[in-house]
């Protein structure tokens, strides 16, 4: 499985996933990769996610949407206090996702949310991982396997790629 999540200069998030599925699959088995909310999700006010791993578990937990929702909820207190000053988008909705440290969630909070959902996946017996990107510039990974092919880059950080869990 492969995937990518990106945030462009306009603050728009996109996520995508592509896969051959599981070796030896029968009966037209489909995993989480093509299921919006399980293996892929993007929403400008929270995050973008692409997943890889044992699809049945990602589907049951709705991993991609779950992480985005938790991020959105975690941001709500900051949002509520700052709402009056947040610019509105064309729909009249607050543009929380505008790149601004003023309203950003801490890096640790975002990582903890991703790690908690993957930990929950592990409790159910699922293995794999996710990549995430937020409107506040955080990009990262969470996985419970020994390794994951992965990489990240941004306007203020050089490109890095990794394979093993200890990298």
């Amino acid at each position, binding site marked *: 499985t492969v995937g990518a999540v990106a945030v462009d200069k306009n603050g728009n998030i*996109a996520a995508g996933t592509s896969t051959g599925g599981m070796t030896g699959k029968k009966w037209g088995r489909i995993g989480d990769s093509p299921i*919006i909310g399980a293996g892929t999700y993007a929403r400008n006010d929270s995050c973008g996610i692409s997943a890889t791993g044992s699809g049945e578990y990602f589907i049951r937990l709705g991993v991609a949407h779950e992480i985005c929702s938790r991020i959105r909820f975690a941001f709500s207190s900051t949002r509520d206090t700052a709402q009056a000053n947040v610019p509105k988008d064309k729909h009249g909705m607050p543009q929380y996702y505008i790149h601004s440290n003023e309203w950003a969630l801490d890096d640790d909070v975002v990582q903890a949310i991703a790690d908690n959902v993957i930990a929950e996946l592990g409790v159910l017996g699922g293995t794999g991982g996710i990549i995430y990107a937020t409107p506040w510039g955080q990009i990262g990974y969470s996985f419970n396997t020994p390794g994951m092919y992965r990489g990240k880059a941004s306007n203020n950080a050089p490109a890095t790629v990794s394979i093993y869990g200890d990298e």
Partner: protein
Amino acid sequence: QDNWSIVIHGGAGVLERDKISPEKDAEIRAALNFALKTGSDILRAGGTSMDAIAATIMTLENNENFNAGKGAVFTWDGKNEMDASIMDGETLAAGAVAGVTATKNPILLARKVMTDSSHVFLSGDGANKFSLEMGLEQAPPEYFATDFRRQQLEKMKSQKISSYDVDLKFG
């Protein structure tokens, strides 16, 4: 606002140093770097995140080291059936395909479902037909099939091991 960012993956599993040769390690890192550069160049130039991830994922689909597009794993019946999805965080528009067999880059088909149909999710023969109608590049079965993936299927069948073992322990 000049901020942009991109993050990618090429699958997860029991990826340990003693299981991957230095040559394969370097090959995979080069592929990941190329994918990142492809997306980064688009974003740096002011391109959209949709364009960036589609182009990035295409490079990974075209690389047989990864289980997507060329190099996809085999079904029990010895076929390559691929799935893909894409989502736009600005509009919540989304597109997905499952069990497609002839589109060279399934991520482009998922995007076409999103942009050129009134649906979100197409599967099987219907998705293949939609791909043809959209004029997407097609590829024959031998394009997707690789010896390494065929050996994985044969190992699974002959040793009566599970797909979990094949996919997570043997790549």
